[in-house]
Structures are given as structure tokens and as C-alpha cells.
């Protein structure tokens, strides 16, 4: 007891004695912006967010083309926000980039940069997101996604599509970085092509949803491995490369020559062709 008391009494003042380096005053700046919907029939968005939390959701109001709430450390970052309407105002083009101004120092308080973007639910959207260090949470439920690209960096990324995309999505491209990636309900996007490139972090791609047409999926497995979850209604054909340090686990498949077919392949109305290039990590397919 006595020793414990001495230990606590001695550590507390030492903690108190810690002298922090000169502190830069932190002034979190907040920007909220709404772009009203004019005559736009489509929107092309490029989002780059180097450090902090990024959230993308469907907007609540039809009269807004997009809106965002941004909070950032004014001393260290600078947002570069551009919007223009092309083709006689029919095509909107929105770009957002939060750039670091490279001022260093210890902050008295730390508030992460945060942005919450909301896109119009009735305008077809081409969305390209480059997330750097930090969490990215892309909730695409309710949006009309025409094209979707994600390049995730160090932090983890979560993609969710809980309801069917009202329009067909031409292309889905996902490049995973160091952090883990979790996607749920990608089948709801109604895509014809999905390309996934794995990084160091593992990835889980849940491809359940309302499938309306056949699709091609090309996967380059990175170091972390990938887990595909397929809905039972879809017939799946898999071609997998054989590499020395990789594993392929397919549940419910039969092999014909070098191709693997799901047991429902002949009877399924929707067919998905999965081409896998394995790296160090393996691939696993299970059924939901």
C-alpha cells in the first residue's frame, strides 16, 4: 500500500511536470455550404481528403445538388472547393480538396478534420473519392450512382449500399490501401463491372443486393486477402490464378477445367464472372 502510494504520488507530479513544446493555437474552422439544384441533370464529383474523417451520405432535400459541413484545422489545412456547371448548366462538376499547409506544432486541443458530404438523391452521380489518412465512410444508400471510384489510404474505409441503386452503375473501382476495407450490399449498385485492387489491409466485399444484370468482377488480391460474400440467387463463375503464396477458398463450387462454377450456375438468372489475380493474400468466397 505504502509503495503504491509513493508510486502514484511520484508519477502524478512527473506527469504534471511535462513541458509541452510551444503550442500553436488551434482554430477549427467550420464551413457549411449548399449548392442549390438548378438545371443539372448529372453531377461529377471528385473528393480528396488527405487527413481526417470523411462521410458521404444521401442528402435529405431534393432542392440541394450537394451540401457539406466541413470542420478543419485552419492553421494546417486549406480547402480547395470548386463547382461549375457545364453543357449549358446540365452537367455539374464539383471538386473538393483539403490540402495540408504543412505547419507543424503541437495542438493544445485536437479535433480531427471532418467532412460530411450529402448528395442529391435524384441526380445521377459520378463519384471519385481519394481518402488519405483517416476513416472514410461512404453510405451510398438512396443515391443514384452512375460511376463510383474509391482510393483509400491509411485509414479504414466502409462502403454501404443498403437499398437498390435506382439507376445502373457503369463501373465500380475500389483501390484499397493500408487500412481495412468493408463494403456491404455492393450488389445493390447494379454495376456491370467492378474492379478491386487490394492493398496491405484486408477487405470484405459483401456483394448481396438486388442484382439486375450479369457482371464482371476483376480482383487483384493484395497482401491482406479478400473475402467475397455472394447472394444465393446469383450464379458465379470463378477463374483464379495460381500463385505460390496465395490461397483460394471457394464454398459451394465445382471445378470444370480451370474454372469453378457455383452449384446454382445453370439455374441462376444472373451470372457473375469473377477473375482473380492472387497476390500474397488469399481470396475466400462464401454465400449469404
Amino acid at each position: 500500500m505504502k509503495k503504491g502510494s509513493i508510486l502514484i504520488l511520484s508519477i502524478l507530479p512527473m506527469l504534471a511536470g511535462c513541458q509541452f513544446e510551444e503550442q500553436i493555437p488551434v482554430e477549427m474552422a467550420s464551413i457549411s455550404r449548399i449548392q442549390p439544384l438548378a438545371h443539372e441533370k448529372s453531377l461529377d464529383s471528385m473528393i480528396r481528403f488527405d487527413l481526417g474523417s470523411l462521410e458521404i451520405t444521401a442528402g435529405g432535400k431534393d432542392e440541394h445538388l450537394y451540401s457539406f459541413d466541413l470542420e478543419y484545422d485552419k492553421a494546417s489545412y486549406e480547402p480547395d472547393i470548386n463547382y461549375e456547371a457545364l453543357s449549358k448548366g446540365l452537367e455539374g462538376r464539383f471538386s473538393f480538396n483539403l490540402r495540408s499547409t504543412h505547419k507543424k506544432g503541437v495542438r493544445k486541443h485536437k479535433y480531427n478534420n471532418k467532412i460530411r458530404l450529402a448528395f442529391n438523391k435524384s441526380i445521377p452521380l459520378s463519384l471519385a473519392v481519394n481518402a488519405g489518412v483517416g476513416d472514410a465512410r461512404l453510405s451510398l444508400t438512396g443515391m443514384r450512382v452512375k460511376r463510383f471510384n474509391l482510393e483509400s489510404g491509411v485509414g479504414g474505409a466502409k462502403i454501404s449500399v443498403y437499398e437498390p441503386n435506382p439507376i445502373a452503375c457503369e463501373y465500380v473501382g475500389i483501390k484499397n490501401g493500408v487500412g481495412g476495407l468493408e463494403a456491404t450490399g455492393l450488389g445493390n449498385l447494379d454495376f456491370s463491372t467492378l474492379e478491386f485492387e487490394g492493398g496491405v489491409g484486408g477487405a470484405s466485399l459483401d456483394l448481396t443486393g438486388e442484382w439486375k444484370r450479369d457482371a464482371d468482377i476483376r480482383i487483384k488480391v493484395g497482401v491482406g486477402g479478400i473475402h467475397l460474400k455472394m447472394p444465393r440467387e446469383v450464379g458465379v463463375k470463378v477463374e483464379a490464378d495460381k500463385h505460390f503464396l496465395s490461397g483460394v477458398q471457394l464454398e459451394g463450387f465445382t471445378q470444370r477445367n480451370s474454372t469453378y462454377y457455383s452449384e446454382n450456375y445453370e439455374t441462376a438468372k444472373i451470372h457473375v464472372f469473377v477473375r482473380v489475380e492472387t497476390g500474397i493474400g488469399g481470396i475466400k468466397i462464401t454465400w449469404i
Partner: protein
Amino acid sequence: MSARHRPSLLGALLWIGFGVLFLLRNFGIGPSFWSIAGRYWPILLILLGLGKILDYCLKKETFSIRIGEIVGIFILLIVGSAITKISETRVARFFRDLPVEVGDTSIQPGQWIGDSYSYTEEATYTLDRSLPVRIENSYGAVSVAPGREGEIHVRLKKVIYGDEARARQMAPQIRLEGSQLKTPEASWFVIKTNRDSLSPQEGMFNTDLEVMIPKNSRLEISNSFGEVSVFEINGYLDLKTTHRKLEVRDCTGTFNLTNRYGESRLANLNGNVTLTSRGKAYIENITGDVTINSEFSPLEIYHVKGKVSLLVNENGVHLEDITGPVIIEARGARVKAANIRDNLRITASYQSVDISDVAANIWLDSRFAAISLQDIKGNIEINSNSDRVTAGDLEGSFKLNGRATSVKLDDIRGPVDIQTSLKDVAVKNLQDNCSISNEYADISVTVETLGKGGIAIRNRNGAIDLALPANASFILDATAKNGQLESRYPGLEPPRKDGNAVILRSKVGGGGPRVVLETMYDNIRIEEGRLHKGSPDKPNKKEKITVDIDLFQDKDYGLFRQDTTTDL
């Protein structure tokens, strides 16, 4: 403890001293403990040494120091130096902002470290009439409690970070402002600080506002990066904050609340509550309707006497003891609902839905979810896609219109109507009528009591197993178009072949409700009492086809493995 080993009073005196210093500081008296400790902490080592000398003088022992003490002091110095060193790096930022949950309270011990100086300023404003009150703040807490009628009393605590000289210089520049604001729509009494007019380069500071207003007041608070707490105020409350806790207790009125990223705690509120939240929310004892839009964070709601409407995006919601009707739209969010006295309507996807003890009807629209329903008094209607549904102890009817949904029911007292595909349906202890259809998966039904409406089970590419109660009276019409028909029920006539089909039509016990069974490409089995696993002709369950290719191992070395199991 013997007198010989009686410890010195030094430790006790130090504890008391620290306690007094902290207590005085909490009342705003005296300098910051940490600023003193930061400079004078080595005195503690000197005091410990003095204690040793005192022990020597009083006990007349030989002056000695044990090896353990030397090692202890040595370790302390190393730890202290390491922490000091770490504090000079970016790692310190992490520890400084690390929140620690103590009970229900989130604290940031790191914020206690370093120099800060507090100054207070108080002001009292007279309200000519009961004007609505608006409080604007950022980087600091706002707390509101009832005070005297006709006045507003404000206590501003300025917490200034940095060295003492700069803090002293800056303190008078931070001012409290209270004035009446007239707009074409309304008049307000506005309380705020002059933060916006101060340059951030002048220093970092927090402004905590403690405000006392007349108990019956309309109140609007707009805060950012700071807590908001309101107690015992009656009126229309419009409260907003970000990043920090929002707490409202023991109030009456209408509540319009927004919290971006921070936790919300609402308790003992009399009136309708609307909350938009992107942080954890805990709500209890509400007399009125509750409407919540919540994203990405857990939501808990208990004891609501009113209607509950929730829009929840991811994470989860848990609600219990709700008197009014409940409507939940949960996208990718777990739902747990118990003790619901009125109707329940849920839209859910991709997560679990756990419902128990509901006194009225349930409507559920779900996809890719795991659904559990227990102890439901009313009727259940489910529109489903690729769910896993388990239900038991149901008083009312059960209707499911789904695809790729598995269903497991037990102890159903009302009629059952199920349409699904691809996944098995298993019903036990059925006590009423039943209509089930499936494709590409099996159906098994155990009947406890035959309902007057009878049983109709149709399957396309799956088996039908049916167990009927002993000594039952019924008319059977069973057809296995391209499969086998096995009957173990006493009193049934043997089946007959008709082309590829096997047909069994029979009246048992003088007839009664109709039992219609029909499969296209699989078998039918009829038993008495309960279903026995397996049959001599067919395994009980289809084996899944599994291909497991282990590419870690090379074919040429004889280690390549490929396992394939197919339907037996």
C-alpha cells in the same frame, strides 16, 4: 500494525494537501495545481528523503536505504524522464486527447496536463418581459438552470492556455456580452462572448458559461466544440452543439435538439422530443413523442409514453418499454426492441433485428437481416429478402412473403402463411392453419393442433416433411410429382404410382381439415407425433458442395489438395 513499523505521516499529509489544492481549484481559488507541480515536482523527492531522516530520528534506527527503494526511485526517474521526453513528441497529442470513460462520463485526463489559468466574470441582466433567451458559444461548456424570475445571471469561466503572464494579459480581453436582439420575426435576449472579435493568435482559450434563466423560458443554444447541459427549464428548447455532450434533464416543453458528433443524454422530459444526432444517444423517461435521426452511433431509448419514430443509419438502436406506436427505419443498423405496447413497424437491412414482448401487431420489411421475434401478442407480417427469420411464442398470425429467406418457427398459435425460396422452412408446434410454399430448399412442419383451415404445403425443388398429431382427423391429398412419398402415419392408405408421380389421397379419423402436400422434384414424408431425423432413402440434409483449393502447396510435390463433396 506494531508501533515499531508505524509509518510516517508524510504520505497522509501529502494526500490531504493535494486534495485541498484540487478542491480550492474547483472553487476557482488559488493557482493551478498542475502549474505548481510542473515546476516544483522534484520537491517531492526531497520530501521523501526528509521522511526517511525523520524515521531515523524518531525510531533511532540506523540510517539505511533498502535496495528496493533505490531501484524504485531509479525506475521512477526513468519513467518520469521518458514521459517528459514523450511529451515533446507528437505522441503526447494522442495521450492528451485520449478520452477515458468513467461510468457514464467521458473525461480527458490529458487535458489536465499543461498550464492553464482560469478567471471568472459574472453578470446579471434584467429581463423586461419574458423574452426568449439565446446563448451562443464555442470552445466551452454551456449549462443552463432555473434562476430568478425577470433576470438572467451568467457566470463566465475563462480558461486560458499558455503562460501566466499572457493569460493575465488576455483575461480582460475576453468579455461577456448580453443584449436584446430584435429581428422582424422575434426578439431575443442574446448571451455570448466576444470570441469572434479576438484574433486566434492572441491565445487559446475556452469559455464556459453557467447561465440561470427564469424557469419558464424559451431557450435557444448554439454551441460548438463544447458541452451543453440544460436542467429544469420549461419551454421550447432549441439546442445545438458539436463534438461534446448534450444533456437535457427534468424539463417540460418541446425539444428540438441537434448534436453533431457528441453524445446526447436526455432524461425525464415532458413533451415531444426531436433529436438529430451523429453521436451516441441515451434517452429515458419521455412523456411525449420521440423523433430521432441518428447516424453511425448507438441509440438507446427507454420508457417513452408516446410515439417513437426513428431513422437510424448504421450502428444500432435499442429500445424498451414504449407505450405508443413505434416506427423504425434502420439502414444497416441493429435493432433491439422489447416491451412495446403498441404497433411496431420496422424497415431493416443487413443487421440483426431482435424483437420481444410486443403487445400489438408487427410489420417488418427487411433484407439480408437476421430476425428474431419472441413473445408477440399481435399479428406479424414480414416482407423479406434473404433474411434469416426465427420466431417463437407467437399469439397471432404469421405471414411472410419472401425470397431466399430461411424461416424457423416454434410455438405458433395463429395461422401461418409463408412464401420463400432457396432456404429451408421449419415450423414446430403449429396450432392453426398453415400455408407454405418454397423452392430449392426443404420444408418441415410439426403440427400440434390442426386448424380448421387445414394445411397446404407446396415445394418445387425441395422435400416436405410433415408430422401430424396422433389420433387426428383429416383428409390428406399428397402428390410427389417426381419423387418418393413415405407415410408412417397410422390409418393412411398406401400411396399409388401415377407415371412419375406418387399420390396419396386418404381420409383419416372420419375426415376433417384438408392437408394438401405437393412437391415437384423431391420427396414427401408424413409422420405421427414428431419428425424423426433422416430416412432410409435419403440423407436428412443436403451436403454443400465445397471446393477448397489450397494454393499454398504445389501440385508437383504431391501436396496439392482439392476436396469436392457433392449431393449424395
